[in-house]
Each structure stands twice: as structure tokens, then as C-alpha cells.
């Protein structure tokens, strides 16, 4: 890069000509987590000692959280990100795919997915709330209206050694999600919740946001190239800057240490959904002005790294620079240092680059029409600087230049090679007899944290606000909403990832997360069109963890390619956005289970065809798709009955899985399926039980496991987690159903029938295995999760 100077009175961090120990001491005195080699690399780039402000900026921009320094190479190597329906792949705040054309207007779907793990462990309520706050900003700043969010939550063992803390975290997180999300007025379509002891000291809170925007009105984060020639102002909008969230990105890039929690708390931001809602309305008004003038702007949310990260990325993306006067930034506390101002992660802020011809109108919208300063003390929109053509990123403070670096140098990041060593898994398959009384075992099983109904959590989420919801969380494997007024198009979303699979095989853990997310979307009748992933792992500096990470990516990539987009042979379901979260481990140094969490976004032309999982009519036939194999490794059955993991983790048989997924979509589209539910954690028996318990009327099931081919013992047939589906088909549609299955090379097994009495009957030939009243099952199943949260 070019050499660019600082003003002489600016304090610098001394790197040149001092020992490694002295460099480390200097970094520590500023609270920076840069390594000594990284500091020396910074010196080489700048050809001088960095100012304190510059060192702080690079500390954040070179953190794992912002730079993907360990992961970028592998993400590019393994994950398919391109397909004809992708309008914007990974790289910006959110990914965008084609949605539909309605009344001559092309609409697109904007999706974002990230983690908020460490903040949620330290301050569960604020951490989880800010998770939603951050992810919706990522979607808003693409010019979109946010229409839905989802949460994938992973908590520790609610009955284990750390149970008090686990329950406190779980309750706080759920509370933060509903109190923030509901106030914001965005429907929450559920997501999923898993408990596993590997999260005892480090919960996972992944958030997904979905928005809709007309294709012609997509805004980009990058400042338009016109800004090199014309006058463009940089405008900061929202809450006054405070010290909250300072160092948040670096905080997310280090191991949690409970001794430091007091200090870490300041790295958790403070959210305000009420202000956010007004900001969202004012943004809409601002965008209307911009579109009516045919102008181009840059629009970016302020997340990790605050003003520095947002503004440098905006200008660097177009090869431009900026001059920013930090004294123009509205402050909550006038004593803040320039390092804090420039990198604080204060919530509810956006950065805009607008042509100076409309600056005064833009300011008027925020400050007068929507009265930000009246709504929230100190909130407003102000001009903080200008876009410049020379490519340099200059920050002024107290009359001096405290930062003067080429913008591209700040954003081009660094990469590190990590060592990878195969993690040995010593699990074996258990020898055991089935429970004496299957019925009473099932009643216990239904109360367990991972098998029980998710409704005690989901009923805290407002899944109705906006009025677009068609299928609600818990009523089917995926949530469905109608995103465009007047159009029949439906969007289905689901998020998955079972931690126990990844413990046995990270490769299959990754592949299974993709397959299950796709199955869930197919179960309502939607076609998977895009994926997002959030990869939650321990420290990448541990070779075994890095091995797990790489294996997981291979599994995700292979599955996304193999189960290609229906109707487009060979075209993968693209991964359009996501994030990597490393350093998920607690005091004990034990990393969380390899935890890929994959969300799938499916489209259906006609949402009126969507099916739910609840049984519909007495006399219907119940069909099983997918062989029951000896794949109980990581199963809930082994965990609940034997407290062991086992070895035979389910595998995705890619060709069969694709045929089954595509057949289910087609059958539902053809109107020959009354209800549908996939088989995953808990196996066939939990799938059947959930279909029965979800139905409101007095319907039940009577099924025979002898109908299932193969040598497996009856209990293993019931609890095997080999992938599959159960479908309810009216007898009048049986012929059509079987013919369609034949065309897809899928062999359905007729398991039994839906009965007209509320009883759950499972037989092996004439021998009854389970005979329970659905009322009793439902009462236990619906209460289970409450026991784990209290």
C-alpha cells in the first residue's frame, strides 16, 4: 500500500525496533487481542507504527469474526454458492435470491443468518435480543422489509452438573428473543431448540432473518462508484454512540472466560426494538425519496466493528476513500476516546452514503418527520464525513489525523493456515435389550428435553404479526408465510443441526443438517432454493477442532450439490449467506459439539397447497419413505435409554434422499398428501407420535412394524434416525400416490391407518408394542420443555 502519514502528535503503538515481549505488552495495555506476528505484519503494511486508533481498527478487522482468517479458504473450497437464482451470494450483509414475479414486478428474497453466542452466554437476555436486532439490520440495509425471523438455540444439559446456569441462560435467551422480536413487529417462525451437555458453558444462539424487496430496489452496502466523481456525504443514523459492544467482534473471537465476565459484559450491546421500528419506517421513507430521484446510495448497518468497519467496507468495495470527523458523531458520553467511538458496537445505527444534493432532505426525514431526537434521547441523523476519490480512509479527532490508511488495506484482511488433525472418536455400538414396557418408556421419552414439544418456547414468539403467516411453528416441519400481498407465492423456512451426529462424524453431521433442513421444507410442499449456514465450533487453533470444521464443510457442500434444485439437475441448492463462529468453549476448555446449523429457504408457487403434520381424517393410509437401517448412533433413543452415543451415525444416501425429497414436493403439489412429517431425531415413533398429538380432533394411529422390511429389531425400527418421511394419504389417492412414487423410484411402505379414536397403537404383527391414550401422551409431551426451562 501507499505510505500515508499521521499527524506527529498522535499517540502510536510501538512495533518497530522493540522485542516481541514489548510489543505484546503494548498490545495488552490497549486491550488488543492481535498477535505479535499480526502486529508486525501491520507494521510492514503501514511502513510505520500504527496509531492507537489504527491498531484498534485492525484488531477488530483482523479478528476471526470479521476476517474469516482461518475459514475463508475452506469456505470457498467446499461450499457451492452459485446458481442461476442467486442475485447476491455470500460477501455482503445478506444473501439474495429470486422470489417471484407479481403484477409485472420482480421480487426477491433477502436472507441473513448469524450467531450471537458469547453475548448470550454472558448476558442471556440482552445477548439474544441483540442477536435479532443485528440480523434484521443486515436485511433492512439491503433495502428490504423484514418479514420473518427464526432462532436456532442450543443449550446445555438442563439436568446436568451445570443445570442452574443452563436453565438461567435458556430462560433469559427465550425472554430476550420474545421481548425484542415481538416489540419489533417481525413474525418469529420458530426455528429449533436442542439441549446437549457440550453447551453447558457456551450456549449457541443463531438467528435468521428474511426480507422481501423488489429487484430494482435492492440497495448495496458499497458506495456507488459515482461517489468518486460526485459529492457524496457519509451520514450516520440512529442511537447516539456509547461504549457498549466495544470490542464485541474480538470478544466473539476468543474463548469465554468466566473470570472476565465482568469485563466482557461491556462487549454486549444494549438493544432497543422500539427505536428500531421507527428507524425502519424512516428508512422506508428515505428509500422512497432515493428511488423517486433515480439516485444510487450506499446503505449499511453498523454491527461488528461499528463505524470503522461499516464505513471502510462501504468505500473500499468501490475503490474509494473517506474522510470522517469523529467529533461529528453524536455521543452518549462525551468522554469517549476516539478508539471507542470508531469501534463501539452501539445498536440501532445505520451508515448511509448519499449524494450531497439530497443530504438535507435525508436529515429532515430522520430528524423532523420521524423525530428521532424526540423518540430517543440523543438519537439523530448527522453528516460525519465525505466519500473521497483517493482511496484513503482518514479519521480526524481533535484537529489531528488519528487514522490514515488505504481503505482496501483495512478490509482486505489476513489469512492464517491452521493445522488439522483427525479427531479420534472412540464410541462403540451398545449391546442391549429393548425396554420391557415400550409404552411406559415412550411416555418418559416424550418428556425428555429433546423429544418434547417445542411449543412452550414457540408460544412466546409472536408468529402472527404482519398477518402473512400461513403455517405456524410446531404445526409443520417448516414455517410458511405469504411474502407478497395478493400473490399466491409461499416461502417455507426451517433450521436444523443435531449436535450428537457431529460428535460421531462431523462430515455426516454437516450433510445431515443440510438434508434435514431440505426435508423439512419439502414436508410442507416447498422446493428448497437456497441455504444458509452458521458454523459453530471450538477454537480453530486446536487441530482436532479445525479438522471437525473442515469435515463439516465437506459434508455440507456434498449434500447441497447432491440434492440439487428440483427441476434443475446438477444445480446445487446454493449457500447464499452464513457465518463462522469459533471459540465456542467454556472454562473447562471443552469445545462445543461440532455444530453446523443450516437453514433452508423453500419456495412454492401456491401456498394454499401447503400441508401440515397433523393427521386429517380417520381411515387415511400412513406411508413410510426411507429404509429403517441400523443407524442409531447419536440417536435420542441411545441417549435416553442407555445414556450413550453409539457409533452408527445416520448417513445421507444422496441419490435416494434426492429422489424422496423431490417426490414429496411433487406429491404435495399434486394434492395427494394430507399430512407429512420427516423422520429425524427420535425416529419413526416420534414422527408418528407428533403427527397424532398435533391433530386437534379425536384421531389416532394403528401401525405395524412388520410392514417395514429388513432384519432390524422392532425397537430399532422405531427409533432409528435414518432419514425418511411419513405421509398421510386418503385411500382415494392411493393409486395416484403409488404411481407417482414409482416414477421417482421411491418405494413407499404402508405402515398402517389413521383411526377414529385418540389412541396410539404400534404392533409387531398381532403383538401390541405400544398402546397409549393420546391425551396422556399429549399432556406429557407438551409439558416436557417447561421442566427444562424453569
Amino acid at each position, binding site marked *: 500500500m501507499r505510505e500515508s502519514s499521521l499527524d506527529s502528535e498522535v499517540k502510536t503503538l510501538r512495533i518497530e525496533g522493540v522485542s516481541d515481549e514489548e510489543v505484546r505488552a503494548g498490545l495488552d495495555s490497549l486491550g488488543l487481542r492481535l498477535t505479535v506476528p499480526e502486529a508486525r505484519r501491520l507494521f510492514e503494511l503501514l511502513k510505520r507504527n500504527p496509531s492507537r486508533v489504527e491498531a484498534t481498527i485492525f484488531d477488530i478487522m483482523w479478528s476471526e469474526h470479521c476476517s474469516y482468517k482461518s475459514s475463508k479458504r475452506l469456505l470457498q473450497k467446499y461450499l457451492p454458492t452459485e446458481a442461476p437464482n442467486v442475485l447476491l451470494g455470500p460477501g455482503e450483509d445478506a444473501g439474495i435470491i429470486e422470489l417471484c414475479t407479481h403484477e409485472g414486478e420482480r421480487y426477491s428474497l433477502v436472507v441473513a443468518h448469524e450467531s450471537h453466542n458469547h453475548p448470550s452466554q454472558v448476558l442471556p437476555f440482552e445477548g439474544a435480543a441483540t442477536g435479532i436486532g443485528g440480523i434484521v439490520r443486515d436485511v433492512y440495509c439491503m433495502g428490504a422489509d423484514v418479514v420473518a425471523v427464526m432462532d436456532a438455540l442450543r443449550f446445555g444439559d438442563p439436568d446436568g452438573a451445570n443445570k442452574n446456569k443452563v436453565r438461567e441462560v435458556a430462560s433469559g435467551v427465550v425472554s430476550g428473543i420474545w421481548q425484542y422480536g415481538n*416489540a419489533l413487529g417481525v413474525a418469529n417462525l420458530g426455528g429449533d431448540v436442542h439441549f446437549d451437555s457440550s453447551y453447558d458453558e457456551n450456549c449457541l444462539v443463531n438467528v435468521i432473518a428474511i426480507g422481501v424487496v423488489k429487484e430494482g430496489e435492492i440497495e448495496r452496502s458499497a458506495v456507488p462508484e459515482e461517489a468518486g466523481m460526485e459529492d457524496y456525504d457519509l451520514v450516520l443514523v440512529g442511537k447516539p454512540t456509547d461504549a457498549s459492544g466495544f470490542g464485541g467482534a474480538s470478544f466473539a473471537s476468543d474463548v469465554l472466560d468466566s473470570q472476565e465476565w465482568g469485563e466482557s459484559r461491556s462487549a454486549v450491546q444494549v438493544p432497543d426494538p*422500539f427505536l428500531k421500528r421507527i428507524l425502519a419506517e424512516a428508512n422506508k421513507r428515505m428509500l422512497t425519496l432515493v428511488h423517486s430521484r433515480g439516485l444510487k446510495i450506499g446503505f449499511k448497518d453498523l454491527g461488528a466493528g461499528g463505524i470503522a468497519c461499516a464505513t471502510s467496507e462501504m468505500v473500499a468495495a468501490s475503490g474509494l476513500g473517506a474522510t470522517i470527523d469523529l467529533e461529528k458523531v453524536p455521543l452518549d458520553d462525551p468522554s469517549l476516546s476516539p478508539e471507542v467511538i470508531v469501534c463501539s458496537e452501539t445498536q440501532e445505527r445505520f451508515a448511509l452514503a448519499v449524494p450531497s444534493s439530497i443530504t438535507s432532505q435525508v436529515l429532515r426525514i430522520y430528524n423532523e418527520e420521524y423525530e428521532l431526537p424526540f423518540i430517543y434521547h440523543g438519537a439523530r441523523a448527522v453528516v460525519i464525513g465525505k466519500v473521497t476519490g483517493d482511496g484513503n480512509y482518514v479519521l480526524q479527532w481533535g484537529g489531528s489525523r488519528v487514522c490514515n490508511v488505504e481503505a482496501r488495506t483495512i478490509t482486505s484482511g489476513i489469512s492464517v493456515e491452521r493445522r488439522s488433525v483427525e479427531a479420534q472418536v472412540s464410541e462403540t455400538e451398545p449391546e442391549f435389550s429393548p425396554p420391557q414396557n415400550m409404552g411406559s418408556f415412550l411416555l418418559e421419552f416424550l418428556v425428555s428435553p429433546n423429544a418434547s414439544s417445542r411449543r412452550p418456547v414457540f408460544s412466546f414468539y409472536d408468529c402472527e404479526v404482519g*398477518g*402473512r403467516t400461513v403455517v405456524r411453528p410446531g*404445526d409443520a416441519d417448516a414455517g410458511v408465510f*405469504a411474502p407478497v400481498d395478493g400473490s399466491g407465492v409461499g416461502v417455507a423456512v426451517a433450521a436444523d443441526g443435531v449436535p450428537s451426529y457431529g460428535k460421531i462424524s462431523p462430515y455426516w453431521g454437516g450433510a445431515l443438517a443440510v438434508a434435514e433442513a431440505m426435508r423439512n421444507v419439502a414436508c410442507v410442499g416447498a422446493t428448497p432454493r437456497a441455504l444458509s449456514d452458521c458454523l459453530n465450533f471450538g477454537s480453530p487453533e486446536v487441530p482436532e477442532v479445525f479438522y471437525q470444521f473442515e469435515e463439516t464443510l465437506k459434508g455440507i457442500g456434498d449434500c447441497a450439490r447432491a440434492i440439487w434444485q428440483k427441476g434443475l439437475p446438477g444445480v446445487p441448492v446454493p449457500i447464499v449467506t452464513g457465518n463462522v463462529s469459533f471459540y465456542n468453549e467454556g472454562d473447562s476448555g471443552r469445545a462445543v459439539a461440532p455444530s453446523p446449523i443450516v437453514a433452508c429457504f423453500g419456495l412454492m408457487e401456491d401456498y*394454499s397447497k401447503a400441508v401440515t403434520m397433523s393427521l386429517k381424517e380417520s381411515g387415511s393410509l400412513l406411508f413410510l419413505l426411507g429404509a429403517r437401517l441400523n443407524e442409531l448412533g447419536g440417536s435420542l433413543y441411545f441417549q435416553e435409554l442407555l445414556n450413550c452415543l453409539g457409533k452408527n451415525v445416520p448417513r445421507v444416501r444422496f441419490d435416494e434422499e434426492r429422489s424422496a425429497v423431490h417426490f414429496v414436493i411433487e406429491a404435495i403439489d399434486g394434492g395427494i398428501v394430507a399430512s407429512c412429517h420427516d423422520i429425524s431425531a427420535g425416529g419413526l415413533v416420534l414422527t408418528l407420535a407428533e403427527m397424532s398429538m398435533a*391433530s*386437534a380432533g379425536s384421531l389416532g394411529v394403528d401401525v405395524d412394524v412388520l410392514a417395514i422390511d429388513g432384519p432390524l429389531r422392532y425397537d430399532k425400527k422405531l427409533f432409528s434416525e435414518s432419514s425418511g418421511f411419513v405421509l398421510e394419504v386418503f385411500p382415494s389417492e392411493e393409486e395416484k400416490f403409488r404411481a407417482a412414487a414409482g416414477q421417482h423410484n421411491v418405494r413407499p411402505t404402508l405402515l398402517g391407518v389413521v383411526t377414529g379414536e385418540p389412541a396410539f397403537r404400534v404392533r409387531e404383527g398381532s403383538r401390541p408394542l405400544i398402546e397409549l391414550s393420546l391425551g396422556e401422551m399429549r399432556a406429557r409431551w407438551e409439558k416436557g420443555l417447561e421442566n427444562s426451562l424453569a
Partner: protein
Amino acid sequence: MNCEYETQRALISSGLDARIFRWNLDVSELSGFDAFILPGGFSYQDRIRAGAIAAKDAIVEEIAGLAGRGKPILGICNGAQVLVEAGLVPGLSPGQVEMALGPNRTDGRSGYLCTWVHTRVSEPHRTAFTCAVEPGEVLPLPIAHAEGRFLTLSSEVVRALREEGMAPFLYCKPDGVVSDEYPWNPNGSLSSAAAVSSRSGNVMAMMPHPERAAWLSQVPDRIEGPWGRAKREAKGNLLRMKEAGPGRKIFDSLKRFLS
């Protein structure tokens, strides 16, 4: 605020012309409207109690004056909380706050709850927002609130709710039998009241969200009774899905009342 757009869509679907009135516009413009809806959501961060601060807002003061002149006013969820805090319902003693909406508390569950409930309208002719409902009709509607339990210290209010039909919507079982038990009464509300109106019936505060049930597509297919059946039977028929849902009747009533 929060539910203004879907409430506007629902009003338009009933043939009404609906505008969203931003909080900081000139309140004198309000007198040009024929009816008012205070939509659901949140106001002033729900500080003190939900709706308590908004009830003192200039807009609400203006609307209170218009209520006195007989204009119909409906408060939904947070809007209902505002009307109660402003003393507009039940309004037995003008200017007095006679009720409160307390935190949900039942034997089955406490705290915020988002779910569908069944409500029964016994005497539709009494209010501007029920006059198009059949007597005794059961309407499934969604709720989403933490503070929806109608409470009062006044025995006069209790009497008015029970004897004068000033609780136009009552929580009930799917067959229409009014019940005080969870989950039928989801929040422990007094007399199973899902809504409370003024004596003259032009002002009503309701906790369920009719705008989230204005189309059949919005109704869950597992709901018991005729509406759930209608939803199941409409599967695959987009035109039927776009027909009216149970909540539409509230807006249809207003349309009938105004014309």
C-alpha cells in the same frame, strides 16, 4: 404501533377506506375521519403498564372527544390497553379508569402467550364491531400478549359485564360453551372477557387480533370447528384461501355500522 399495515389491509378488504395516521401529525385532522382503530403492537415501550403513557397522548385525548360524539373506536391488543388506561371502556363513570389489563395468569400458564383461542359473540347488535356477527357465533382468533387479563375493583363494572353484555367477546370452548378454564380462557380474564365495550357500544377494547384472521389463509388447519374444517377443505384452492376469515366479521361490522 406495529400492526398498522395488516390492520389497514383488513379494513380495505371490508370495503373501507383506511389511512395510517402517524403519531406526530396534527391531531385536528382527526375529526375528518368516521371511525378509528388503535392497532396492536407497543407504545412508549410499554413503560409503567402497557398503554398507560399512550393513553395520555394528544391523539388519544382527541379521539376521546370524538368517542363522546358517538364515533366508533376499536382498540386491538395494545390499542385495547390504551382505551382501558384512557378510561374510554367501560366508561361507566366518565373520565375514570375503571379497569386494568393485568399480566396473564392462569393455572395452566402465565406470561406472554401467542396462540389461537375461540371467542363467542352473544349479543352482536350491541356494538359497532359485532353487528355483522350471528348471535352465538364462535370466532377463532389469535392472541399475542403478556397483559390481557381484564380486571376491575368495581362491582358495578362486574355487573355491567355480566348483565349488560358489555363484554361482547367471551373466551369459550370450540363448541361455544364459555369457560373460565385454561386454555379456553388463556389469560385469566374476568368473566372470560376477550373484549370490553362502552355502554353505547361505539367503543370497544379487544385483546384478540382480528386483522390476523381476516383471510381464511391465516387460519391454522388444526383449529376445531367450522373454520378449521373450512381451512382444511380449502387446501389447494387459492381463491378460497383468499376468502374472508373469522376476523373479517369485525371489520364488516364496522362497515355495516357506518353505512
